[in-house]
């Protein structure tokens, strides 16, 4: 039987030239917060669109001593997270964890963990559509020009039209945000709940879009402002009066589930590790 360490691939699957290219792009992305740096995006044993951007960043950054956490919509045990983790472990043999505080690198699909992050941690997002201007401009060459010239008028017109038709800004997840007063970014798509967490955070956020071949970053202590209009300020999802059916949390992002009682709806924390630890805490009375 093959020993776990006798893997037949290079450490972290990618060849070293690929890692170096991605590392150079990561550095440029950190130096120009919010700017989408083009990169080659290699073929991987998973399809584009299944987290290859985030995965390539993770594989380029991790070392033998790294402790990794992978989540999908806040859940450590969902199919996407488990499969990505399995690929990473089989080519690195590194330690993984579900404990947010213990992780050096957290790779995530569409959520930021509820627990606070530190300067020592790197948070990596899997991004399906990195171009926030795509909804208002289909041509790539034109969106690049718009970013270059900070020509974001059309985005604000879209917000205004939303208010005109629906009485409020209707963008849910992937709410656009202005980074360092310069570039508009697509926020992963994380829910609105998580967007303020990007602002002046202690840790580095890296965003990887494998299919669209872009890497961008929000460095620590960087201003990130969700787009809004003066009289229609940004607001998060409202969970007032609701609580998690498992741990009783009233201050976490909740998923709505169908239920036989309580008007056919029940709620559970989206962050599975937070929910588990919160339940244990309330059991212990701490």
């Amino acid at each position, binding site marked *: 039987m093959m020993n776990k360490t006798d893997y037949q691939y290079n450490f972290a699957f990618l060849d070293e030239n690929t890692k*170096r290219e991605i590392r150079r792009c990561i550095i440029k992305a950190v130096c120009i917060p919010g700017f989408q740096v083009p990169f080659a995006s290699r073929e991987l044993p998973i399809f584009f669109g299944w987290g290859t951007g985030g995965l390539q960043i993770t594989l380029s950054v991790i070392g033998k001593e790294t402790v990794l956490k992978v989540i999908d919509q806040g859940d450590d045990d969902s199919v996407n997270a488990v499969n990505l983790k399995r690929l990473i472990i089989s080519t690195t043999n590194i330690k993984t964890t579900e404990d947010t505080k213990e992780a050096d690198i957290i790779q995530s699909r569409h959520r930021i963990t509820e627990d606070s992050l530190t300067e020592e941690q790197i948070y990596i997002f899997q991004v399906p559509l990195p171009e926030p201007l795509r909804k208002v401009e289909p041509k790539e060459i034109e969106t690049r020009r718009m970013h270059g010239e900070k020509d974001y008028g059309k985005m604000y017109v879209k917000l205004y039209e939303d208010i005109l038709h629906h009485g409020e800004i209707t963008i849910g997840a992937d709410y656009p945000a202005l980074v360092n007063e310069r570039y508009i970014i697509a926020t992963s798509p994380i829910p609105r709940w998580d967007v303020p967490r990007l602002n002046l955070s202690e840790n580095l956020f890296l965003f990887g879009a494998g299919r669209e071949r872009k890497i961008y970053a929000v460095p620590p202590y960087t201003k990130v402002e969700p787009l809004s209009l003066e009289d229609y300020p940004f607001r998060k999802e409202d969970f007032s009066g609701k609580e998690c059916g498992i741990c009783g949390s009233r201050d976490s992002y909740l998923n709505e589930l169908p239920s036989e009682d309580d008007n056919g709806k029940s709620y559970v924390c989206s962050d599975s590790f937070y929910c588990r630890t919160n339940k244990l805490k309330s059991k212990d009375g701490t």
Partner: protein
Amino acid sequence: MNKTDDKIFDIVHDSQKVFSIILKAFSFPGRIFKIPEIDFLCDYELQKYIAVFGLTLLDFETTFHVIDDSTDSLFKKYIIKNSQAEYSGLSDADFIFVINTYLSDSINNIKKGSLIDPSKSAVLVYLLENIADTSKGSEYTVKLSGPGIKEKKYLHLNNFKECEIKKWISVNKEFPLGVDIVLISKNGEIAAIPRSIKIEINT
């Protein structure tokens, strides 16, 4: 003894360790980090730490230029031999290594990127005597603010010409166009100043 029997720079694990420090330096501008001690035989023993930086980020897809105080640059030969990076003129180089000297007015000729793609710009890597975050022995202070810095950060560069820092300010005045700066000391300390950072000189 044959050189291949000696310890070599492990491009898989050593470069990952060095990269993680480089990334930290760029993420927290002005903060001083220590490049890990790597036990390997380096032909360019003069300055092992700047060699390690080159081996970590350069390969055949990159171009570089060296501004050295010597006519026969050992560093240039070392990088060509060990990274396969292409040596180019100053205006085309992705990485510019400034060893024991200054760029001065040449800084105006280096790649600053374009508004469409500001990432197509150069990284300036300086080799210095030392970098410090205390004011001991320095004539002036470099005050930094911007992304990656909680409030303000101060750097002290002993025996480093103030006019070179004024050139940095000038070349990075039109963000997002500009260059990213890395400072490496002979003791293996590293600090970075991305173009997004506002630099002020306090005398």
